[in-house]
Structure formats: structure tokens, C-alpha cells
């Protein structure tokens, strides 16, 4: 039992020892400082002693330092030895030098940074008898410092090399930092020139106050200002567009103490956008112009088509005219013979025979009628000679009335004129439209008993769906076309309805034999067709008939 106890005791002691060594080792590893002492004799370096902490820092034990009096010098990094010796010399010369940071090579051949702070020791007489020093391992700090420096350099390189303007401002919007691009824009030669200044010193007042207002809002709210497109005029007067982002900078407590800004130059993009916009509006203008030209072309095309139709009509009439002229020539010679023959016979035959006298008169009338049919036929076909000019329709109607003055007064017809005073001018062959008006007024006169009344109206109408619904006569005209409407209204007995569809047929007449040729309305229709107009004849609900015709008026732009 005793043996077992002893064994257990030994194990326990062993464990306690191991535990103690472990603790020591851990303490040693945690130690970053140690103290050394150097003795000075007659102004020369003497023995040196190192406390046990030296092992943790240098890897060498105090005994090793004691065994080699120059070990302390050998572990100093070669490049730092001169500095250390300078420090030693200053101590020996009686100075109190500041701490020195230098490198050592430890026992494991690793480079360590240490801070070496020596404090001279003197005797009662004030003579230097040695110095104590504190060696602190600052390798960790040095590494962090180096890392920070690297990081700082990286950041500085970055902000100085980006083409954007970057700056930092304090809580009063004073510059704290400006990158190279920003300095260049500000026109500052020195990296520190702008520090402490504000935008007011660099930019036009209006812009600077705008920037300041934005920044005050940002500093107050802590909300960043993102991607603001803003105009900039630099101190040299160059104009830019910047896309600006400003973010608040906060201190450790989260209080906003300043701001950082980055401005991206979007002048080119803006200019391009503006150029694009200008190009677009030029394009739009051109498109409008093209559309206008297209409209004009369409109008011209329409006019050409109308002209073509008129030409076709004219060509038809021309062939009819040639025929009519031939017929006229061939018929007029026989008529001449009949006329002459009648006159000869009238002289040779007994004058007192009433029957003969009547026969002569009938034959003479027949010749006259035949001749007037020829005349109408020639009129019907004489469309090749078509002279269009812009005329005042009311004046043309008045002249026709003047030409008919004696017929109208013989028939005791009252004429009432209801003319639109501001009727646009009408492109027409004046003589032909006069003939139209004469034929219509003569027809109206002949349709009435004595003391009849004719009403002549003119009116301006704009073609379109509404107008066409109200008046089928304008149906064939295009939306928006300006028309002049003429109405010749009589108060006769009207035209029997079954005859209305044939009213424009050549040689169709409702008049008594010998009164009409049956060509008057045909001539009217031909002339109106030739003008591209429209005509209708209908009965009016009260009494009598009305002839209604429309003609295109001069286009507004051609009026002036």
C-alpha cells in the first residue's frame, strides 16, 4: 500500500511540475517586454544583464546573454546597428535619447521589431554608472502599421487615379481631402491648397449655394445624395455636367461629421444626348416638312387628276365638236338654199294667198329652229376652248342677268338676289358659266306664267360628311373642300317627277314644240362637268323647280 501511495505521490508531483512548467511557458509566450541592465565603467560599456523576459522576446535566455557579452549586439538587425550604437553613444555622452525602434534577429532567425527605451543610472555624484532599458516587442504593431500604410497608399492611389472627382468635406462643407482630378478641376496646384476652403471660393455663387443646400440637407438627415445630374462651371469657366453622389461620413458614435463626394463627368453623354435631341428634332422637322410636301404632292396629284379628267372630257367634247362643226357646215348650206329659195318663191308667187304666206312663215321658222339646234350643238361641243380664270361668281351671275334684261322684263319676271357677300373666288371659264346662268334663268323664265319670280342664291359650303348628309349634291366632294353653291329657284309648276331623270339628256325638252332645242340643260351639264362641279334639278316642296349647282372655290392660300 505504501508503495502505491508513493507512486501516486510521485505522479502527483510530476503532474504538478508539468503543470507549473506549462504555466511558465504560457506566461513567457505572453510576455512582450523585458528589462536589461548595462553597466558603465569609466565611460565604457561594461557587463549587461537581461531579465528572464528576454527569452520570450529574443529566444535567448539570460544565461546565454551572460555567457556572450556581445550577444545583445549580434542580434540587432545589421541595418539598424548603427542607429542603436548612436543611441548608446548619446547615453554615454550624458544625454537622454528618445526611444528607438529597431529590428532584431531572434534565436529562431526571425526578424522582430522592438522598442528600446534606455534610462541612464547615476551615482550620488551624478556620474553615469550604467543604464537600464526596456525592450518592448512591437512586431505586431509594426505589422499593423505597415498594413495600414499599404491600405492608405492603395486608397490614395485609387482615388488619385480614378478620373472622377473625389473629395471629403467636414461638417461645415470645408474641403478636407481632394483627389487629383478634383484638384485639377478646381485649378489647385498643391494637394493641400483646397483644404479648409469651400465651394464658394471655386464656383459661381448660384451653383455653390445649391451645392451647400444639398450638403446641409445631407448633414442634417444623414441621407446620401445619389446620382444627381448637376451643372458645374469650373473656375476657368469650363462647363460640365456631373453625376454626383455624396454620402455622409460618421464618427465612431454614428454622428455625421462630414461627407464624401464623387462626381462623374457626364458632359459628353449629356452633349451627345443633347445632340441626339437636336438631331431628333431636326429629323422631326424634316418629317413634318416631308409630310407637308407629301400633302402638297397629294393635292397636286388630285388637281392633276381633276385636270386629266377635264382633259379627257375636253377630248371627248373635241371629237364631238369636230362632228358638230362638220354637221353644222353640211346643214347650213341646205338651210342657206332653203332661205334663198323661199325668198325667190315668195316674190314669184301670188302675194294675196294667205295659205301660202302661212306656209312660208312655217318654213322660215323651221329654218330658224334648225339653225338654233346647230348653234346649241356647237355650244355643247365648243369646250375645247376652255379659259379658266379666278372670277367672282356673284359678278358673273349679275352680268348674265344684265344680258337677259330685256327677256326678263318682257316676261315680267321679278328677280330676287340672295348672294353670299363673302363668297371666295371660283376658277372658271367665265363665258361658259355665263352661258350656264343664262340657260338656267331662261329655263326658269319659260317655266313660269307671266309675273313669275326667280330667286338666285349663292352660298359657301364646306364639303364633308355632315354637309353631304344635309345635301347629297356635295357628296362627291372631298372632306374640307370649299364650294360655292348656286340656286336658281322659280315658282312655276315644276317638272313632272317621271321626267326628272331625263332632264339632262340631249334633245329632251318639256317645252312646247318650237320653244326649246332640248340642248340647253345638256350644255349646262357639260359645262359644269368640265368645271368639276355638280348640278341637280329638282322640284321644291312648295311649287316650282330649282336648279342647284356647286363649283369648287379657289383654295385659301391661292386667294391672296
Amino acid at each position, binding site marked *: 500500500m505504501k508503495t502505491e501511495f508513493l507512486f501516486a505521490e510521485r505522479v502527483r508531483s510530476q503532474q504538478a511540475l508539468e503543470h507549473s512548467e506549462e504555466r511558465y511557458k504560457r506566461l513567457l509566450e505572453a510576455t512582450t517586454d523585458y528589462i536589461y541592465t548595462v553597466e558603465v565603467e569609466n565611460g565604457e560599456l561594461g557587463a549587461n544583464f537581461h531579465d528572464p523576459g528576454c527569452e520570450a522576446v529574443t529566444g535567448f535566455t539570460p544565461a546565454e546573454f551572460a555567457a556572450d557579452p556581445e550577444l545583445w549586439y549580434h542580434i540587432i538587425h545589421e541595418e539598424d546597428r548603427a542607429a542603436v550604437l548612436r543611441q548608446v553613444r548619446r547615453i554615454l555622452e550624458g544625454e537622454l535619447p528618445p526611444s528607438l525602434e529597431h529590428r532584431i534577429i531572434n534565436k529562431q532567425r526571425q526578424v522582430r521589431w522592438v522598442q528600446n527605451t534606455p534610462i541612464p543610472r547615476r551615482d550620488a555624484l551624478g556620474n553615469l554608472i550604467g543604464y537600464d532599458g526596456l525592450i518592448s516587442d512591437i512586431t505586431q504593431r509594426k505589422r499593423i502599421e505597415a498594413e495600414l500604410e499599404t491600405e492608405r497608399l492603395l486608397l490614395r492611389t485609387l482615388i488619385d487615379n480614378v478620373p472622377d472627382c473625389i473629395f471629403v468635406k467636414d461638417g461645415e462643407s470645408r474641403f478636407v481631402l481632394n483627389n487629383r482630378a478634383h484638384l485639377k478641376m478646381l485649378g489647385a496646384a498643391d494637394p493641400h491648397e483646397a483644404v479648409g476652403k469651400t465651394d464658394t471660393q471655386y464656383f459661381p455663387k448660384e451653383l455653390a449655394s445649391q451645392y451647400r443646400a444639398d450638403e446641409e440637407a445631407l448633414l442634417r438627415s444623414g441621407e446620401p445624395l445619389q446620382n444627381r445630374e448637376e451643372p458645374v462651371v469650373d473656375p476657368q469657366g469650363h462647363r460640365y455636367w456631373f453625376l454626383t453622389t455624396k454620402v455622409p461620413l460618421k464618427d465612431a458614435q454614428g454622428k455625421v461629421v462630414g461627407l464624401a463626394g464623387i462626381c462623374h463627368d457626364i458632359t459628353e453623354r449629356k452633349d451627345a444626348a443633347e445632340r441626339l435631341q437636336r438631331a431628333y428634332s431636326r429629323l422631326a422637322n424634316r418629317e413634318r416638312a416631308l409630310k407637308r410636301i407629301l400633302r402638297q404632292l397629294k393635292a397636286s396629284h388630285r388637281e392633276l387628276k381633276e385636270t386629266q379628267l377635264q382633259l379627257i372630257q375636253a377630248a371627248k367634247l373635241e371629237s364631238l365638236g369636230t362632228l358638230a362643226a362638220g354637221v*353644222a357646215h353640211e346643214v347650213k348650206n341646205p338651210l342657206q338654199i332653203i332661205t334663198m329659195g323661199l325668198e325667190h318663191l315668195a316674190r314669184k308667187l301670188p302675194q294675196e294667198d294667205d295659205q301660202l304666206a302661212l306656209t312660208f312663215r312655217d318654213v322660215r321658222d323651221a329654218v330658224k329652229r334648225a339653225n338654233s339646234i346647230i348653234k346649241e350643238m356647237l355650244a355643247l361641243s365648243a369646250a375645247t376652248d376652255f379659259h379658266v380664270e379666278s372670277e367672282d361668281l356673284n359678278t358673273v351671275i349679275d352680268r348674265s342677268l344684265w344680258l337677259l334684261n330685256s327677256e326678263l322684263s318682257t316676261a315680267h319676271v321679278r328677280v330676287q338676289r340672295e348672294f353670299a357677300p363673302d363668297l371666295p373666288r371660283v376658277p372658271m371659264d367665265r363665258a361658259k358659266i355665263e352661258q350656264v346662268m343664262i340657260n338656267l334663268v331662261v329655263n326658269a323664265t319659260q317655266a313660269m306664267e307671266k309675273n313669275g319670280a326667280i330667286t338666285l342664291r349663292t352660298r359657301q359650303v364646306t364639303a364633308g360628311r355632315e354637309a353631304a348628309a344635309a345635301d347629297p349634291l356635295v357628296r362627291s366632294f372631298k372632306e374640307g373642300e370649299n364650294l360655292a353653291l348656286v340656286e336658281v329657284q322659280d315658282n312655276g309648276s315644276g317638272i313632272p317627277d317621271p321626267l326628272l331623270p331625263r332632264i339632262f339628256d340631249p334633245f329632251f325638252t318639256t317645252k312646247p314644240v318650237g320653244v326649246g332645242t332640248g340642248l340647253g340643260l345638256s350644255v349646262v351639264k357639260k359645262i359644269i362637268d368640265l368645271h368639276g362641279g355638280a348640278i341637280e334639278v329638282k322640284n321644291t316642296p312648295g311649287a316650282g323647280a330649282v336648279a342647284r349647282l356647286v363649283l369648287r372655290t379657289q383654295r385659301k392660300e391661292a386667294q391672296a
Partner: protein
Amino acid sequence: MSAKKKILVVDDEPSITRLLKMNLEDTEQYLVQVENKAERVFDTARQFQPDLILLDVMMPGGDGGELASRLQEHPAFRSVPIVFLTAAVTKEEVSSHKGQIGGLPFLAKPVDMPEVLGCIQQQLGA
């Protein structure tokens, strides 16, 4: 009573020339010679020595207008008035040109005798 005036009537249609001759001579004021061939007008005129020529404008074998110009250029007939007779125009057209076309008086067929006589008398200054 002065001597009868001599009138040359030129028309390609014999019925017309015959009736005109009869009606004119019935007035006992005129002596009438007719010609139905345009190409013979000069010969006939030289022989007959007319005081006035009634000339159809359109005839086969000769244009009346051209014939009139040639007659007027000829020294023998320069002073002889010419009156056109035509079926090609209407009375209205003639009157709208004051009875003259191309500087010469016109009569539009069909024309009656009073008109023909009026025109002749006017031209002869009677």
C-alpha cells in the same frame, strides 16, 4: 340710174350661187356672175371685173381665206371689196367681231336677202 354693180359670187354649191344670183338680180341693181370652182376665180374675175366679190370660206379646191388674200394682193383687184359667206361660224360669233373676221366682212349662213343686201350696200358705199 347708174350702171348696175357687178358682183361675183363664189361658192362650190351651184344651188346657192344660182339662188343668190336670182335674188340679187331680182333687185335690178346688180349684175351677177357665179363661179363654183375656186381655181377658176382669178380667170373669171379678170374677165368679169366685179365691183364686189361674195366668197365662200370653205370650198373644195381652195381655201376662201387664202383666195381672198391673193385677190387683195393682186393690183387689178386690190380695191374690190370681198364679203365672206361662211357656214363655219354663227351669227353671234360674227357680230361679236363686229361683222369682221381677219379684217374682212362676214355673213354667216344661213343668211337672208335683207342681210346680204345690207352688207353689199355698205361695202359699195351706196
